[in-house]
Structure formats: structure tokens, C-alpha cells
């Protein structure tokens, strides 16, 4: 039974005997972009950067949307994160996976946006007295109406359950499960110890199971 859900990253041993993960294609491209920028070839660097954006865009949107639950905010957060990556590419360390570095930038941006949104809402008049209801689902064109009809109920149930998780648990769960990062990478991204990340993750999954069980029992 293949139980492990995390992508097992290939590892290599360097001449000094330390084990290092084999870098992904994204990491290679990021290293090349950095070299081009350092050499002053910014146009060539931009061309390579387009490739990097195309490879990471969808994953980035999934993560940002899980954090922000708003189409426009997620779009803004992803754009900002990519622009930051390019402007700070010289500080990227090639020996580390690009995805971890990028995810950290993205998550920090999402948290900032969420704080800004909370500040805005603090001054806005409440439209209804139902403060506990989850935020309305964003409206956007969908391509396959039939498929949406089939899975809408389940998707909504799971989305609601994830939305009910406490913030930290949701962050950890999103990074581990949706961004497909290891607990060690998440601990680096969030500045938590690995044990703490694991505790949050287990609690999140346990709570998710309980919530979904309750939903199914109600249904």
C-alpha cells in the first residue's frame, strides 16, 4: 500500500558526503536566471523567467486561493510574488529548492494581504448580522458546467471544512498537502519547528475527518 503522499524528492550525495536533494527543473531555471541577471543580461533573464512563471503559476494560484478564498486577491498575491522573485533573484540560493523559496514569498504575501483585508473590514459596516457564515464563494466563469454539477456538492463540503480549520492548521495543511511540501520545508517556510508543523498537520487532518464525517451524517 503506497501511503506516503508527499513527493519523495530525489537525493544526491556530494563529494563531501552530505546528502542533498536533486534540484528540480524550476530550481535549475531560477539558477540560470540569477546568473543572467548577475551578468547584466536582463532581457535574456526575463525570457527565462516567463518559462518559470508558466511552470509555477497554477500551483501558486492554488496555494494563494486556499489562503485568501478570493479570486482577485489570489491573482494579486501571485503576481506580486512573481515580481518579487524576479527583483530579488540575486538572493536566491541555488542549492535549495526554488519551490520552497517561492512558496515562502507567496505565503508571506498572502498573509500580508489577509491582514490588509482584515484592517479594511474592521472599518467597513457589516452587511449582515451572520458573522459566522463562511465568505461567499467567488463568482467566475467555469468551463465544464456538467462536471461542476457533479462535484459541486463534494467540493463545497470539503472547502467549507478546510475553511473551518484554525488558521495555523489550515496554513500547514495547505502547504503540506496542496503545495506538496515536506514538513521540513514547511517548518522553514513558516518559521516553526518541524515537530510543531507535524502537530498542526495531524490536528488539521483529524479535524477535517471529523468535520467531513459530520457533514456526511447530516446529509
Amino acid at each position, binding site marked *: 500500500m503506497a501511503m506516503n503522499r508527499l513527493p519523495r524528492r530525489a537525493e544526491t550525495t556530494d563529494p563531501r558526503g552530505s546528502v542533498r536533494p536533486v534540484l528540480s527543473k524550476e530550481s535549475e531555471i531560477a539558477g540560470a536566471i540569477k546568473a543572467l541577471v548577475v551578468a547584466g543580461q536582463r532581457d535574456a533573464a526575463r525570457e527565462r523567467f516567463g518559462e518559470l512563471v508558466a511552470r509555477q503559476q497554477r500551483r501558486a494560484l492554488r496555494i494563494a486561493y486556499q489562503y485568501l478564498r478570493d479570486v482577485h486577491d*489570489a491573482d494579486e498575491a501571485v503576481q506580486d510574488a512573481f515580481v518579487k522573485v524576479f527583483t530579488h533573484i540575486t538572493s536566491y540560493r541555488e542549492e535549495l529548492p526554488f519551490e520552497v523559496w517561492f512558496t515562502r514569498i507567496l505565503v508571506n504575501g498572502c498573509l500580508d494581504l489577509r491582514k490588509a483585508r482584515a484592517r479594511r473590514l474592521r472599518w467597513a459596516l457589516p452587511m449582515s448580522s451572520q458573522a459566522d457564515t463562511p465568505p461567499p464563494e467567488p463568482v467566475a466563469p467555469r468551463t465544464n458546467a456538467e462536471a461542476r454539477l457533479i462535484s459541486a456538492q463534494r467540493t463545497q463540503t470539503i472547502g467549507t471544512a478546510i475553511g473551518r480549520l484554525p488558521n495555523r492548521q489550515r496554513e500547514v495543511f495547505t502547504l503540506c498537502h496542496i503545495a506538496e511540501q515536506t514538513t521540513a520545508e514547511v517548518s522553514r517556510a513558516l518559521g516553526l519547528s518541524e515537530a510543531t508543523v507535524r502537530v498542526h498537520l495531524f490536528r488539521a487532518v483529524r479535524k477535517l475527518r471529523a468535520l467531513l464525517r459530520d457533514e456526511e451524517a447530516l446529509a
Partner: protein
Amino acid sequence: MTRHHLTDTELLALQFDQRRDGDVHAHVAACATCQARGQAVTELLDDVTRATAEESDGLFGNDLLARQHARIMGRVAHECRSARIISFPAAPPAPVRPVRGGTRWVAAAVAAGVILGIVGEHVTQRIARSHPVRSFQVPAVQVAVDPGVTVRAVSTGSDDDFYGQVELAFGSAAPAALRPLDVLTPRVSDVRE
């Protein structure tokens, strides 16, 4: 098999943690109960993966991704544009060019023209005051109407008289002062008679 069933925490750890010891894996391989429980967790997480991916992929279609890509590249191009270099300290001001002789003559001619214009206006006014304005007779107004209709022809005398009446009328707020104007204005009823 001496090991007990896996706890929930251990089951979840199997899902996410890559560094479990071989004992746990060996137990799961041999224990049908733990396999079933592990399978349930796997299915749950698969459901979550599918649902979250479907949700966000449905919201962010290919066209939105293409537009976002273009916007990101546009912003990056803007950020990369080399900044304009401003010299510091600021460049010294351009030296003032000496006034040429030709420019002076033009200025003198303009000043002379202005003075001549003012003097000429004064002279013209003085001449006008010494000779009063000639008045002329306004011809009687003849209104072309139908043969059956009688129209009073109105003559206003000299211009001075007329303007005097108008000024008098406008100068005072009393309605009586407007009567001369009223008299001069033909009425519809008069025209129809």
C-alpha cells in the same frame, strides 16, 4: 506480530512523513485493519486534493492564466527598465546670453508705438468733445401689413431723445418710467385693428 495497531497519529504520519522507521511499514504491510484505516485516510486526502484542485482550476481558467502571465511579464519589464540618472549635485544653470543690439531696437519701436497710440487716443477724444455729435432723423417706420389692417407709424425723433428715454426708463425702477417705451412698442391688438 507483536506490534499493536497504529494510532491515528501514526497513520497520519505515514501519509506525510518520509522518515518513518521500518517497523511501522512492516506492521502496515501485515495488518489488514491498519491497511484499511490507512486507506480511508488516503481516500479522504485524495478527495481533498481533487476538490481543492477542481475548485481553484475552475476559477482560474486558461485565459485568466494567460492574462496573468502577460501582466506579470509586463510588471517585470517595467521593474527592469533602467532608472533615469539624475546628476547630483544638479547641473549649473545655463549662462545668461548677452542682449543683442537688434533686440533693443525692437523693444524701443514697440514702446514708441504704445506711446503714440495713447497720445492719439487723447487727441481724438478732445476733438470729439469740441464738435458735438450730429443727430439724424430716424425715418418713420412703415410696417408692411395686410391692406385691411391699420398700423400706427411711429417716429422717435432724434437719437438723443430716444436714448434719453431709454436711459430714463432703465434708470428708475418705477413702472411709469417705462411707459414711453411701452407707447413706442406696437401691440398685437393695434396691429389687428
